Every structure is written in structure tokens, then in C-alpha cells.
């Protein structure tokens, strides 16, 4: 029976990957269609008047400061969110990695922020962030003598507030992956280090961190892509305002394509976003394979 189960070794990997590939192949057509649209003046409300206009959309958009501001905002939002989530995630995962009373409950509770659909969380946070004393946050800060802040209404505070919401929702992601990673770490190196009398900091820097690096890179990879593409959180709260302070590439793409029916423009924004994700992922996956080989 065992002999008859052995399949041709060469094709096996492809056979295993094929179903997964097929499930995702539906993305290829929309992607290439999207690229095609960037070269046309396709307007949703005038579907019969599509003209090929070459790179004119790109020229228009790249010379518009709205684009560059959106690019910067996307960048800042994504990296700030990822850095905070990773830092917080690492700290909390390390702390949760010890058996103590109630740790099981805490470990189950920690994912709760992620369990609420991000768009709903954002709405709830909008209520918490209400500008006057009606907002819970301002109300509580009032006890510390701080006067109410218009969190989502001010140009700088809006972006900070959104990053805060993102960190609140997604740090559990980092914590969970890091915790699983910490739990899978082998014991010998630590035993050896204890025998050698190494300090906690040394153990952390030379043992834990390198062995966790695949996990860390993975978290950066996924959170970065998701943060670059973020939509729900911004859409539910500021919709890109005030005066464009929180407009990312995805939000602008939404306005151009769905609100103003300019598919050509909208797809350019989406394509730039896609390319950004692609470039970062290339770098990060390379880092990941290197981290594995340490």
C-alpha cells in the first residue's frame, strides 16, 4: 500500500500548490484590467466612450501635489502603525510567555480588539474621540485638567488618532504570532545560556530576537501591506479629511473611481499602491528567507 501511494516526486509540489493557485487566479484578470484602465479615460458614467490616452493619466496625477501628499500620508501611517504594533506586540508577548495565574484568560482576551470588524471599531472610536466633552476620551482627560481636543478634526491629531485606532485593533495580531513563535522556541540554547550565566538582556538580544526574526519579519510583512492598503478605518472616521490630512492612496483611489467615476485616475492610484506593496514585500521576503537560514 505504501508503494502505491508514492507519487512522482517531481510534480508533487506543483500538484500541492495548484488548487491554492486556482482559488486565487481570479485576481489576475481584474489586475490587468485595472492596468488597462489606467491608460484610458474610462468614466463609469460614460462606459461607451473609452479612449486610449496613453500615459496622460499618469502625467496628470504625478504632477498633482494631492498625489504626493497621499503618498506621504500612506507611508507615514503604515510605518508608524507597524512600528508601534511590533514594539507593543513584542513587549506584551514576552510578558505573556510565562505561566502565571490567569495567563490563559489574558491570552484569550488579548485578541478581543481584533474581533470587532475594523469598520465597526472605527465607528466606535469615533464616538470615543468626539471633540467636545461628549467624547469619552476628552471627558476622562478632563479629570487630568486637559481641555477637550478635536481628535479627528485637527490636521495632525487626525492622523495620530487613526494610527492609534489601527494599533489598538491590530497589536493582537502581532502578539499572537509572536507568542506562538516564542512558544516554539527550542529550550537548549536557553539552558546552555543559563549554565553560562548569561544576563537576561544578552539572552534576549542574542538568542530570542534572532530566533524570532522570521516571525518578526512576517508580522512586518503582513501588517505593512495591510496598513498601506488601509481603508475601513479611515473611511469610517474622517473619509480623508480634514482637508486631506488623512487621505491615503487607497482613499483617494476610492474618491476618484467610485465617487467621481474616473476609473482611469482611480486605477492609477491603486496601481501605485500595488507597486509600493510589491516593492516592500520583495525586500521583506528576502529578509525573511535570510532570517530563516540563520
Amino acid at each position: 500500500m505504501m508503494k502505491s501511494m508514492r507519487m512522482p516526486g517531481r510534480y508533487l509540489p506543483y500538484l500541492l500548490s495548484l488548487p491554492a493557485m486556482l482559488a486565487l487566479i481570479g485576481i489576475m484578470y481584474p489586475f490587468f484590467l485595472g492596468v488597462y484602465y489606467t491608460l484610458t479615460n474610462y468614466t463609469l458614467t460614460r462606459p461607451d466612450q473609452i479612449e486610449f490616452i496613453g500615459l496622460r493619466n499618469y502625467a496628470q496625477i504625478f504632477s498633482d501635489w494631492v498625489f504626493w501628499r497621499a503618498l506621504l500620508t500612506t507611508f507615514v501611517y503604515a510605518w508608524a502603525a507597524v512600528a508601534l504594533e511590533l514594539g507593543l506586540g513584542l513587549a506584551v508577548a514576552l510578558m505573556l510567555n510565562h505561566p502565571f495565574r490567569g495567563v490563559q484568560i489574558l491570552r484569550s482576551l488579548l485578541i478581543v480588539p481584533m474581533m470587532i470588524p475594523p469598520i465597526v471599531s472605527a465607528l466606535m472610536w469615533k464616538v470615543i474621540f468626539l471633540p467636545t466633552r461628549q467624547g469619552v476620551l476628552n471627558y476622562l482627560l478632563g479629570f487630568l485638567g486637559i481641555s477637550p481636543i478635536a481628535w479627528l478634526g485637527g490636521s495632525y491629531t487626525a492622523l495620530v488618532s487613526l494610527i492609534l485606532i489601527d494599533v489598538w485593533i491590530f497589536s493582537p495580531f502581532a502578539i499572537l504570532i509572536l507568542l506562538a513563535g516564542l512558544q516554539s522556541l527550542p529550550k537548549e540554547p536557553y539552558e546552555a545560556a543559563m549554565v553560562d550565566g548569561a544576563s537576561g538582556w544578552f539572552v534576549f538580544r542574542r538568542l530570542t530576537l534572532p530566533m524570532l526574526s522570521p516571525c518578526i519579519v512576517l508580522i512586518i510583512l503582513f501588517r505593512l501591506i495591510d496598513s498601506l492598503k488601509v481603508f475601513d478605518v479611515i473611511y469610517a472616521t474622517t473619509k480623508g479629511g480634514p482637508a486631506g490630512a488623512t487621505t491615503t492612496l487607497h482613499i483617494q483611489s476610492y474618491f476618484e473611481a467610485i465617487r467621481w467615476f474616473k476609473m482611469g485616475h482611480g486605477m492609477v492610484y491603486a496601481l501605485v499602491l500595488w507597486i509600493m506593496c510589491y516593492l516592500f514585500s520583495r525586500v521583506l521576503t528576502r529578509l525573511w528567507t535570510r532570517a530563516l537560514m540563520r
Partner: protein
Amino acid sequence: MKDGTGKLRSAVRVVGLGLYFAFAMAPIVWILMMSFKNPGDVIATPPKFIFSPTLDNYKAITVGLESYSSESLRPDFPKYFLNTLIIASATVAVSLVLGTFAAYSLARFSFPMKEDIAFTFLSFRFAPELMVILPLYVIFQKCHLIDSFAGLTLAYQLVTLPFLIWVLRGFFEEIPKEIEQAARVDGCTWWGVFCRISLPLVKPGIAAVVILSFIFAWNNFIFAMILGGERTQPITLGILGFIGYERVLWGQMAAATIICAVPELVLAFVIQKYIIRGLTFGAVKG
């Protein structure tokens, strides 16, 4: 000396975890309170922490209350809940079946174009939803997949599959080759090794990935909205439905949110013990 640092460590741990959980749980507690408030209390200024609780919101969304005039048409909520349960479970099940094999082959075998295929899986996650949603709608329409559970399960693979493959690949890679080779020498086929050795060793990884994929599928909004319909409306759209024309029904929305989180919480509690299991194979690694 060691005791001293041990106590300091404990103290730091308590404070650190306390701070984080206060930060993480506070809004949840606030939403919980909101779900028990009357409409007047919900938007009160200043925010009310002490109020007389009511079960009206929960009743309204499960059974439907006649006390609101145009706002009691919500008894569909249990149906939304069921829809989401079906879709999320199916999505995770399908992703597990498809993705585990793909992850294993990427981790264990070397074959031409391996990294390209791996990266292609990842690239499916980059696509900004808006870029793909309109053509995807047309495709789905032609295949009669709009408003179908199968269609949504398929669409959700975009959200869960790349993630599952990459994370599991990482965990598979961590398994020392010697263990598997030892089993092969004993006469097991790749399938045997896979099922009886590799899979059990990545249980924490699978557990983490199952709970996270379930959450991603459960919380998804845009695919459900565009590619779904009246038959498959999931809970995310149901919750947003509380933004009525006249006013936002915060109380009911909060109640719906709490109910929405329950299956995820249950799954997390059940699964977390797989994540934390101490693994004895660590003794073999060196």
C-alpha cells in the same frame, strides 16, 4: 540576587500587562456599556458611566421591538449571524485544506520557480480591494456567484489564503529536517511524514492561523457588500445597517457588535491551549 530580579520582573510584568489590557479592554467595556444603555443615555453629555441598564437593545436585534417605529425591522440579525458563521467556517476550512499543502511543499521541496510561486501567493494580498472589486463583480455575475456562499467563500480566499500559506510555511521550515528524514528512513511516505510528524509539530502555528483567518473572514466588509446580497448578508453589513436614515442606533449597534464577537471569542478560548502547549520536540532541536 536572582530572587530580586525575579520579583522586579514580575512587577514589571504586572504593570506592563495591566497597562496594555487597560488600553485594549477599555473601549470594549465602553461598547459593552453602550449596549445596555437607553438611546438617550448613549449620546448624553457628559458621557454617562452610571445609568440604568436595559436589555432593550439585545431584544430589539434578536426578536424585534415594536416600541421603535421604523427601527424595529431587525429580526434578521440571527440570520446574518448564521450567514457569517457559514461563510467564515467554510473559508477557513477551504484555506486550511488548500493552504497547508501549499505551505508544506514550499517549505520542504525545492523546485523551479518556487520563490516566484510563493511570492505570487503573497501578491494576491496586495491588491487594493477597489482595484479588483468591479471586474470581480462582473466575473462573479457571469458565473452566477453573486450572493452565494460558494462565491463569497472563494472571494474570501483572497483574504485568508496568502496569509495562511506564508505563516504555515514559516512554521514548517522550523521543523528540523532530521526528524522527518528519520521517519522517511523508517519507511514512511511523504504523506505519512506529513500527517503524523510535520502537522502535529506545527499545531501552534495552525492554531494561530486558524483563529486569525477566521477573524479576517468574519470581519470582512467590502467583499461581502459588493459580492454578497440579501441571501448571504453577513454580520458586518448587519451592524452597519444600524446607521439608519434618521439616526444611528448606537445601542443596538453596540449590542450587535458584542454578539458578533462571541464566536470569535469562543474559538479563541478553545484554540489558545494549542498555542501555548509546551513542545517536547524542542529537546531534539540543536
